[in-house]
């Protein structure tokens, strides 16, 4: 049911290796498209499944924040700005946080979250694309870790995960 795919989105750059990757979660919900749209665009409903936003309005250019677990020099604030609003179709916002001095969780983050809705036979398809993750330079080592390894890290990831 929960299917997530990692999509490689290599952007060539002359200055340095700037591989960025996207997280994609794509699911069908047995609910009307308008209802799903509401859960994406009402601050009160967002708080019930994403995190509680401060200052959110589904208006292009609008700045808002999420507060999450701080790390080192980073206060844990995710700074967002609405980039695109197409009612009942598409919502995108910038999702920035972190600090240069951190590595891993809490490092500098400059990403974009995009939700795309479409009507399907038995409900609504919701596609989330969280794009712009810059991988650490020695990511090859990270990627080469065995599957068992990843499981450990995932399990332990819950510890540093956002707390509701």
């Amino acid at each position, binding site marked *: 049911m929960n299917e997530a795919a990692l999509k490689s989105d290599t952007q060539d750059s002359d200055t340095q290796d700037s591989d960025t990757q996207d997280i994609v979660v794509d699911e069908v919900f047995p609910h009307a498209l308008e209802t799903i749209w509401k859960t994406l665009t009402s601050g009160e409903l967002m708080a019930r*499944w994403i995190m509680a936003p401060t200052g959110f309005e589904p208006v292009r250019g609008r700045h808002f924040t999420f507060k999450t677990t701080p790390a080192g020099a980073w206060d844990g604030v995710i700074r967002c700005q609405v980039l695109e609003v197409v009612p009942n179709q598409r919502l995108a916002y910038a999702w920035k946080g972190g600090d240069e001095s951190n590595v891993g969780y*809490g490092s500098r983050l400059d990403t974009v979250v995009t939700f795309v809705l479409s009507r399907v036979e038995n409900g609504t398809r919701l596609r989330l694309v969280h794009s712009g993750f810059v991988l650490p*330079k020695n990511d090859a080592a990270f990627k080469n870790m065995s599957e068992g390894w990843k499981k450990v*890290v995932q399990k*332990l990831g819950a510890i540093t995960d956002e707390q509701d």
Partner: protein
Amino acid sequence: MTEANLINAVMRTLADPTRRAVFERVVRSNEITVVELTRGSGVTQGAISQHLKSLKQAGLVAERPEGRNVFYRAEPEGLAPLVDWMSHYGAFWRERFTNLRTLLKEIDP
């Protein structure tokens, strides 16, 4: 330490299966002593102590002496170099979609 060194240090420390098992047990318990960790582990107390020392050096566990006992607890920050944003948000959004499914059932039964 550079980012690469940090990641390498954590990876090296957790590459040993026994040490990883020790770490997982520390993570699962709030606080735990060497004696408790040794029980049922199949290795000696001395070996467990060595593993705890390595985990401590890598910043993965912290210790708190109390009387004759030393209590160990996990230091999740030590894993930060491994739990990068990408794996963090991969888990985050999958979890959020599950929340959304539950929320929709409530507001639109």
